[in-house]
């Protein structure tokens, strides 16, 4: 009744149906009417987690370890409770950065490292191969069994020839063909496969219904409900043991470690990452999936124990492999439709897994392993080829075939030694190695590329040594001595009792050591080094994913310029010219540009091209390729500062505090300085007042003394009377002059003096001052020479003030020149763009030590009664203030005994052209 052709036709028909759904889904997606844009499809697609391991293996596991099958479903249920935060963050990051696989995710997080992407890919491929082998084994076994219908023959595979003589080989190749059809018909930048997701959701429904159908059949057809089965089982000592914790396999450590492993698996299995992250169309779908997916797990697990117990009770002990109960129970009762349904359900679970897993892996192999190497290999001249899209598809198709071949080889070599679940756990342990780099990567800024490489490599090596290689040893392909006596016979190196750690099962043992090496290596190396700028940038993008809007995440870190055509050509080579053109056109539309040509080739277009390319060849390679046509500018200091700011909030905060305390310190230092200056000024003011007081008292003393003498001596002779009165008048004048000059100087010094600047000719000022003093010079018998040039540019200054300076210098000269035979000369000249005035006398001169003192206030020079000058001691200080005010300089040159020359300079009127020429 169930003949081979019928079974084959049913199988093909089923896969054909899946393909039709996928095709329809793709068509609808292209038309913009997605059929997967609802949370139920999303949750069902997540159920790709349930493979033939679940469909057949759980029953097998339950038959040997009772509730030992449960952790594999408890883990995801627990993890789902954290999805609203952890998974949401991963989805957000992946969408913002156009991440297309788990290798891409890790590589991108640690500074877009190609090396890391490659490492993750290798680990994923090697780690997943046992898992694929598991599916092949399940399909192969069940196919062999169902062909015998209605007989029950144990599935014997040992002894069949490799490859062509082996059904499993054909199954593997057929699966490869399906996968190629499903996943690599064309390239898409987002690496999304809407039709595939629809098909996966459908197969999830089919396997659930098939399993429940078998469950109902066993529970209510063979037996009288749950109560009946469990009652009967409890009566057998053997079976009742399965329902309790304890015994060898039921110990808590195993339970806990399997829970942990499956928590990691639901997040980081490449196919789970594919459906939950890459294929996610709307992150709100996650909210429903958080409870829908655990509900699905519950539904598909309700009948595991009844089927396992029913099978154990139904078949004589050991005659039928518990892994096949789901199929063999309907066969034994000769229910053909249910048998076929169960077979299709199992086939569905296996194909779904294989297709999604290999598509995810082939994307990684192509983007993160082959392309980075191929693009670098100059001999391939890939960077010069015009259209690489065909090559990309070829690489992926090759990868799919290769992965299934490897799966088949593993199945052939090691498949027979293990039950389905044990094979699956080997893969789970490998995938768990991604957990530290990802989880720490999205919450901790400190992780570095080298840390991630170290952790992954260490964990992977431990996994290989303690779990993968022993699986070959147990199958006889490696010397068993290695397992029992340790490598080189060293007891401590026994792979499953490493360093003497005993008492754990192989998986727990591996988990312990690999996680110790992985997490330890990751943290130690990360802490030992400072993240580079690229790592810092990516760390910020990942850790702060919730704080960034999608649009700003990328372009901020992308600076450069290229022509639109360069970018288009580059994209065309990888996606095909038509698709590249289409994507640019839709981008142009979204930007409101009229055509592709009118697009600005700015950072945002460059980033767009990079992210499109990232889908095809991975983010690390995409960056390299875009950089090759773009003249990328290095990150500016501003951007680096931004990154540092964002990446180290605490650092910034403490920097602020430091800054504040530095500012405070500076402010108090300023206060101290100001206070000191005030005290200094106060002292100077006291000195000045004291000096002024003294200078005022001196003439006052004479005035008062002579006034009183005149008052008290009315009979003084006329000559003496006239002398005394004359002194009183002179001293009064001196007093007035002194008061005026003190006021004058204080006004200049305080900046309150009034200046009336105008354009003046210095020759006129000299002429005027000469005529003002000519009478005085004549009376003193002093000869005055004036040398004026024919022409002189004008200056801008206060005429009266310059007059004041000239009169002061001339009266000083008259006062100090030789008696008799006094001679004073005035000279005007140009010097270096300045007007220079020299007033020279032939008097006693000024000693070197006095040359600056005479310009200080009240510092007259002269120590005898005879040469004591009649002055206030303020004339020269005032002159110097005036000249300085107009941008000039006043100084004295002298040889003692040979006269002195007082000189000052003034700048020419800057508005005059000849002033500049003179300069």
């Amino acid at each position, binding site marked *: 009744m169930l003949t081979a052709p019928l079974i084959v036709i049913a199988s093909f028909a089923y896969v054909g149906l899946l393909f039709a759904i996928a095709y329809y889904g793709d068509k609808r997606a292209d038309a913009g009417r997605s059929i997967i844009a609802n949370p139920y499809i999303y949750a069902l697609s997540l159920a790709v987690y349930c493979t033939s391991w679940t469909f057949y293996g759980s029953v097998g596991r339950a038959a040997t370890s009772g509730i030992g099958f449960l952790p594999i479903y408890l883990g995801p249920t627990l993890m789902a409770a954290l999805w609203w935060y952890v998974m949401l963050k991963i989805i957000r990051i992946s969408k913002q950065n156009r991440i297309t696989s788990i290798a891409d995710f890790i590589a991108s997080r640690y500074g877009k490292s190609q090396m890391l992407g490659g490492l993750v890919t290798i680990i994923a491929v090697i780690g997943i191969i046992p898992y694929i082998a598991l599916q092949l084994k399940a399909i192969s076994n069940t196919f062999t069994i169902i062909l015998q219908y209605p007989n029950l023959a144990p599935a014997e595979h040992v002894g069949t020839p490799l490859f062509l003589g082996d059904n499993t080989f054909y199954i593997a190749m057929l699966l490869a063909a399906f996968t190629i059809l499903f996943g690599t018909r064309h390239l898409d930048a987002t690496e999304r496969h809407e039709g595939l997701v629809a098909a996966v959701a459908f197969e999830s429904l089919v396997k659930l219904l098939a399993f429940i159908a078998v469950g109902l059949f066993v529970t209510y057809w063979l037996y009288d409900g749950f109560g009946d089965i469990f009652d009967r089982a409890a009566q057998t000592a053997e079976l009742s043991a399965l329902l309790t914790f304890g015994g060898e396999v039921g110990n808590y450590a195993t339970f806990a470690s399997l829970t942990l492993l499956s928590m990691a698996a639901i997040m980081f299995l490449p196919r789970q990452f594919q459906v939950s992250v890459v294929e996610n169309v709307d992150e709100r779908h996650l909210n429903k999936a958080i409870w829908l997916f655990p509900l699905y797990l519950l539904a598909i697990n309700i009948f595991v124990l009844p089927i396992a117990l029913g099978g154990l009770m139904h078949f004589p002990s050991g005659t039928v492999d518990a892994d096949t109960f789901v199929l063999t129970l309907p066969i034994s009762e000769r229910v053909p439709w249910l048998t076929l349904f169960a077979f299709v359900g199992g086939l569905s679970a296996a194909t779904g897994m294989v297709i999604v897993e290999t598509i995810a892996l082939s994307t990684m192999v192509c983007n993160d392993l082959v392309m980075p190497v191929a693009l670098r290999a100059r001999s391939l001249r890939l960077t010069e080829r015009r259209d690489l899209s065909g090559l990309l598809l070829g690489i992926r198709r090759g990868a799919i075939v290769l992965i299934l071949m490897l799966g088949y080889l593993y199945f052939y070599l090691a498949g027979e030694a293990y039950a389905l679940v044990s094979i699956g756990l080997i893969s789970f342990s490998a995938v768990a190695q991604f957990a530290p780099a990802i989880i720490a990567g999205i919450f901790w800024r400190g992780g570095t590329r080298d840390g991630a490489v170290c952790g992954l490599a260490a964990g992977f090596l431990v996994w290989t040594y303690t779990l993968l290689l022993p699986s070959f040893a147990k199958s006889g392909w490696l010397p068993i001595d290695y397992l029992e006596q340790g490598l080189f016979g060293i007891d401590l190196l026994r792979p499953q009792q490493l360093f003497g750690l005993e008492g754990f099962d192989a998986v727990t043992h591996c988990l312990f050591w690999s996680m110790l090496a992985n997490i330890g290596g990751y943290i130690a190396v990360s802490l030992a080094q400072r993240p580079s700028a690229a790592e810092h940038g990516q760390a910020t993008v990942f850790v702060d994913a919730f704080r960034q809007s999608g649009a700003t995440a990328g372009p901020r870190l992308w600076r450069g310029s290229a022509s639109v055509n360069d970018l288009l050509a580059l994209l065309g080579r990888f996606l095909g010219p038509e698709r590249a053109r289409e994507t640019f056109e839709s981008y142009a539309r979204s930007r409101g540009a009229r055509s592709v040509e009118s697009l600005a080739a700015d950072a945002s277009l460059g980033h767009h091209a990079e992210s499109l390319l990232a889908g095809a060849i991975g983010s690390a390679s995409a960056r390299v390729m875009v950089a090759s046509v773009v003249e990328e500018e290095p990150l500016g200091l501003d951007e680096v500062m931004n990154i540092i700011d964002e990446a180290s909030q605490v650092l910034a905060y403490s920097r602020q505090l430091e800054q504040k305390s530095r500012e405070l310190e500076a402010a108090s230092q300023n206060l101290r300085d100001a206070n000191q200056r005030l005290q200094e000024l106060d002292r100077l003011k006291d000195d000045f007042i004291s000096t002024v007081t*003294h200078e005022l*008292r001196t003439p*006052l*003393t*004479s005035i*008062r*003394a002579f006034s*009183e*003498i005149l008052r008290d001596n009315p009979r003084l002779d006329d000559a003496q009377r006239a002398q005394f009165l004359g*002194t009183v008048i002179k001293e009064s004048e001196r007093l007035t002059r002194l008061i005026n000059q003190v006021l004058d100087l204080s006004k200049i010094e305080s900046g309150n003096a009034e200046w009336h600047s105008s354009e003046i000719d210095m020759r006129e000022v000299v002429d005027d001052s000469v005529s003002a003093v000519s009478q005085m010079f004549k009376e003193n018998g002093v000869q005055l020479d004036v040398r004026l040039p024919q022409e002189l540019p004008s200056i801008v200054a206060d005429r009266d003030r310059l007059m004041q300076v000239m009169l002061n210098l001339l009266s000083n000269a008259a006062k100090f020149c030789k008696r008799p035979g006094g001679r004073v000369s005035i000279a005007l000249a140009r010097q270096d763009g300045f007007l220079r005035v020299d007033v020279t006398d032939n008097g006693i001169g000024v000693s070197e030590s006095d040359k600056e003192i005479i310009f200080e206030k009240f510092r007259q020079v002269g120590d005898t009664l005879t040469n004591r000058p009649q002055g206030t001691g303020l004339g020269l200080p005032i002159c110097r203030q005036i000249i300085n005010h107009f941008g000039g300089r006043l100084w004295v040159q002298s040889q003692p005994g040979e006269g002195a020359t007082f000189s000052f300079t003034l700048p020419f009127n800057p508005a005059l052209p000849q002033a500049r020429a003179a300069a």
Partner: protein
Amino acid sequence: MAKRVLIAEDEPNIVTSLEFLMGQIGCDYQTAVNGEEALRAAADFRPDLMLLDVMLPLKSGFEVCQTLRGNEALRKIKIIMLTAKGRETEVAKGLALGADAYITKPFATRELLDTVKRLLGE
């Protein structure tokens, strides 16, 4: 015998007025215009009294006063300090150095003459 007065002052007009005043009360007088000259004149002229300006060139009135008080032969000379700086600290300093009186400029001629007469009469 007429009393002798040494006028140590560098401001010519003040010197003129002091010379007139000393002549008026019948004293012999001599003038010195700086501190060193004042010390030489004190030794040569042997005055009974000295009108000593504080702000003298070369050696200040304080130094002259201190030197005289430290000299066995000259310590008996009466000293009236004259200064344009009327601060209390300066008055105190002058008296502490052994000046007999301290008169601030500008002075009242009668007060100056009374002080001179009082010191010469003792």
